């Protein structure tokens, strides 16, 4: 039993943290968000580094690593709210790789893995998805409806670019009649959910880090505001929520590669907890920053906005908990514990 990352995994994490500290500085993220643009240079670099294909099998041009390595990168990119369509692309690749036909994999995975193509994934109703993150850049869009996934190339989709609360990524309204992904949908969805949860863990981690730094520095009544328990206990709660989300997400990533029988349960837990933590931790970050937290320049709002969109991207806490309750209901009592 060992919760630690391997030396190679820690190296991936270290490299990503250092690179993104340089390439995705807050002022640069703000510039792109204000212009509504993708950081093309960073996006190209991520493709060249193989990050977009980290969990894609080697036969499709990826690096063939696991869900844990993918989660590490999602977390790091979430921390900096990178203005690139990384998450939507890896979510699309995950669904196509694990639920797509061989032909679909051959058609799309090499481009997605290399970062030459972007992808997107969204929940749809009646063939229409009201909010598709990354729709402006996506060459392929995976729509999820009634527990099934289908994909449509950009040419087969009717895409209207829209604005959302989160301008660090593009979005669109999409109508498409795609071709179905024939493979089992559940495990593919669960793997995607783990990657999404990992991004939210990164968002929480950064929100907490910024908040702790701020409340140590900001003085009122002659003392740092972080000395007041009303503030410090809020920060402690942020840590608890973040660590709960982190531990279940790590567990879910591990089950994806090592214990498939528990993946559905673990992913539903991670998804529910990360969505809940993403909202509460980033909301607390704004509150603990006081008036400054409500300003455009303070940069905590990017995290709040990213968390808001991510926490409904593959269904919210409620839908993940409903699925979790179904897993528990279907399990014989003796199999629990």
């Amino acid at each position, binding site marked *: *039993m*060992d*919760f*630690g*990352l*391997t030396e190679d*995994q820690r190296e991936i994490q270290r490299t990503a943290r250092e690179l993104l500290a340089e390439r995705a500085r807050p002022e640069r993220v703000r510039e792109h968000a204000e212009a509504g643009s993708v950081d093309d240079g960073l996006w190209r670099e991520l493709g060249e580094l193989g990050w977009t294909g980290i969990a894609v099998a080697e036969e499709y041009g990826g690096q063939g690593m696991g869900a*844990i390595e993918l989660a590490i990168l999602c977390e790091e990119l979430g921390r900096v709210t990178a203005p690139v369509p990384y998450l939507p692309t890896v979510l699309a690749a995950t669904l196509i790789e694990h639920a797509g036909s061989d032909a679909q994999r051959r058609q799309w995975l090499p481009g997605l893995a290399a970062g030459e193509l972007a992808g997107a994934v969204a929940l749809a109703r009646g063939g229409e998805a009201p909010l598709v993150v990354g729709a402006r850049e996506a060459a392929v869009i995976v729509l999820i409806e009634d527990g099934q996934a289908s994909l449509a190339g950009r040419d087969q989709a009717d895409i209207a670019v829209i604005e959302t609360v989160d301008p660090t990524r593009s979005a669109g309204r999409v109508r498409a009649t795609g071709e179905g992904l024939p493979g089992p949908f559940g495990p593919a969805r669960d793997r995607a959910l783990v990657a999404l949860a990992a991004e939210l863990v990164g968002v929480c981690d950064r929100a*907490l880090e910024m908040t*702790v730094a701020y*409340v*140590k520095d900001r003085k009122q009544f002659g*003392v*740092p505001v*972080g*000395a*007041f*328990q009303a503030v*410090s*206990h809020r*920060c*402690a*709660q942020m*840590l*608890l929520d973040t*660590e*709960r989300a982190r*531990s*279940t997400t*790590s*567990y879910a*990533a*591990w089950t994806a590669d*090592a*214990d498939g029988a528990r993946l559905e349960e673990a992913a*539903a*837990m991670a998804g*529910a*907890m990360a969505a809940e933590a993403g909202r509460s931790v980033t909301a607390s970050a704004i509150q603990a920053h006081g008036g400054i937290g409500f300003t455009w320049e303070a940069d905590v709002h990017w995290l709040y906005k990213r968390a808001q969109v991510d926490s409904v991207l593959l269904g919210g806490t*409620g839908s*993940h*908990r*409903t699925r*979790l*309750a*179904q897993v*528990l*209901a279907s399990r014989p*009592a003796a199999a*629990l*514990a």
Partner: protein
Amino acid sequence: MDLTFSDEEIAFREEIRDWLRENPTGEPPSEGGEDAQYAWRRDWQRRMYEGSWAAPSWPVEFGGRGVTPTKSAIYFEEIGRARVPMPANVLGLLLGGPTLMVWGDAAQKERYLSPILSGEEIWCQGFSEPEAGSDLAALKTRAVKDGDDWIITGQKVWTSGAQYSKWCMLVARTDPDAPKHKGLTYFLMDMEQDAVQVRPLRQITGESEFNELFIEGARIPDENVVGGVGNGWNVALTTLMNERAGLGFVLQIRLRQLLDDVIGAARERGLLEDGYYADRIADLHGRCESIRLLAWKGLTDVERYGQPGPEGSLVKWLWSETNQLLTQLAVDVIGPAALSGDSPWSYELLRARGNTIEGGTTEVLKNIVAERVLGLPRLKAAA
């Protein structure tokens, strides 16, 4: 990351499981009240001792098995799973013994450890006082040197098992002029003297797990000082750090069992398909699982890096809050019958209120997390 157990660990789990199966505790005594319950737990510890299962994490030289922290956690999980009672001398096994192993001299280890293990001598913990709860270092119980003895005067509270104890881990003030953390000394006080009076405290469940101690001139020989005069705070911290190390795994499993009972009751009543109950039960399941994962993560961090992460305080905080939510949900699932005197849930519901207070209130745990984990500044307390 590898969340599986090694073959050796799996074999160890089988071994303790088999032993527990072959050594059933039988039904708890239905008559004789708390004294009979206690005698039953003492007898149970004796049997564990004879099977070398009283404290497998203790080093072999002191009568344990010297197992790794992971195996020790497995042991506590299995103890919890088997729903056997806590050994009578749980405080001696989990707190007193490990504290002596760190701070005790050779003579103390030789004299005290073996009777702790066998349950022959029961231990209790004399830390908290009426005026010193969360602010433990403000304690006022005095120890004054008189020849080769120390004379103790003061009052202690929340002393569980005091009426059955031979030895009390007592922290007292030996230097009233020193700063509050520096003037303390850790003693082993013989409870069998007239100067020590035990009065049970009746708690909201109606039972008396805890006591008050009234100490009027009790005598402690100098050789019963542990860790040196004036070093009591550091020795007490060792005791407190051990407090939740093993117990956390027992609590985690007990929580799991209670939740499984609630899930079973909800299934019988068709409530798992009801959105409101499904949401609450799934939330509690997620909480239970994150407690399990955080507990194991804390343990493996100790094995890997030699020091615990922030998990210890988080686990206790999350566990206590979750147990309160769980027992409240049980009342909703089962309905009014859960509140009748013969339902185990009425006891669980009331007992859970103590969880966020005992062993460090949630408020104090949040302070610890804020100051020691997040590095936030501490507001100067009123002197």
